[in-house]
């Protein structure tokens, strides 16, 4: 028995629910089979899950905790994403281009992930038609989220980005250092403080 993951069945049920929403026509037994291939891993607060420069072929589901994804440019950390419980993340640049991944994936809290090799996922896609469909939808959702983030910075004001952020992630205000949230929103900490006072 896997020691230390007492809630593993619960985590797998959450992962199953997450994937079933995207792969709505996947047969439940097939989904159970896939979910069993995800392996739990624990990361302590501040631990690096995957560092820039490393190659990776792994996809992750956050069962508990919180992950920050950031890159470093000209000595500055730019925060791109926060991935909290019941969300997925994957170093798609490394997986799909074969190049070294350029982001850092850091546990902001004690974190438990369920992880799987992309090649194992693909073997399920080959086996089950509806799962291949789910795989495409996952990539499309990832692609869409990336595009949306790029365009939100261009088209929305700092205030609009902030109000969208707190609508979807109110809990993160108390879980994440404000400098990371400011970086994520593309604003200074001073502007963030002003916006917080206003809303």
């Amino acid at each position, binding site marked *: 028995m896997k020691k230390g993951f007492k809630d593993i069945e619960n985590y797998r049920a959450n992962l199953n629910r997450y994937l079933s929403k995207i792969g709505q026509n996947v047969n439940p037994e097939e989904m159970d089979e896939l979910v069993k291939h995800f392996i739990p891993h624990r990361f302590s607060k501040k631990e690096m899950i995957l560092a820039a420069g490393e190659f990776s072929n792994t996809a992750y589901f956050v069962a508990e905790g919180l992950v920050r994804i950031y890159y470093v440019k000209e000595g500055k950390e730019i925060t791109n994403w926060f991935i909290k419980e019941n969300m997925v993340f994957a170093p*798609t640049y490394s997986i799909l281009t074969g190049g070294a991944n350029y982001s850092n994936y850091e546990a902001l809290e004690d974190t438990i992930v369920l992880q799987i090799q992309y090649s194992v996922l693909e073997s399920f*896609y080959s086996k089950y038609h509806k799962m*291949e*469909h789910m795989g495409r939808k996952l990539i499309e959702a990832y692609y869409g989220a990336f595009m*949306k983030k*790029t365009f939100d910075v261009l088209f929305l004001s700092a205030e609009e980005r902030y109000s969208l952020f707190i609508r979807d992630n109110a809990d993160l205000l108390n879980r994440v250092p404000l400098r990371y949230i400011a970086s994520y929103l593309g604003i200074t900490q001073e502007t963030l403080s002003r916006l917080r006072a206003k809303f």
Partner: protein
Amino acid sequence: MRSAHNISEYRERIRRIVQSVAVLPDEQMNEFLNLFQLEVYPKNSIIITPKTTKNKLYFLVSGLVRIYYEAEGKEITSDIKEENSFFLNGYYLYTGLPNFDYHVTMSPTVVLSADYDALEALSDRSHEIEHMGRKLVELHYANFLISNYNQLFLSAEERFDVFQRERASLLNKIPLKYIASYLGITPETLSRMRSKKT
């Protein structure tokens, strides 16, 4: 009147490109190829407008298509499609939100287009087609990630080098202001770089 366009030859080109991504049985491949129909556009036609909800997958047979959006009163060119490449309204299809980019022809342009819903229906019926679709989306996304990476981590000069290496043929075909916009630099900087190289 007989059309001057040989659609089967154009579909054959799609077959060759798609085959490098996934191998399909003849029957499925033909069903897929037969979804593509001819569309012919003069220069400066808009193929995809903002807020398009009826969608197609396009294959560019000949001509050039520029993708741009307007931000702060300026046109930003995000990509230029050349012959033998695919394009679609990815923003709407992948986010479910209205797109704001234009796909506009820069010269007389011939495309083949397939109705997106018909493609989805075919993917539902055929695992092989679904597989091919996933591979194509992954490829499309990988290209997006690479250009995003270049924008983030390469200097203007390095981006221009990549452009010259991979898209040299465009340099004499389109106004430099679009290339400058695509590279995220001013036309003046681009001119300086070009004269430095020669």
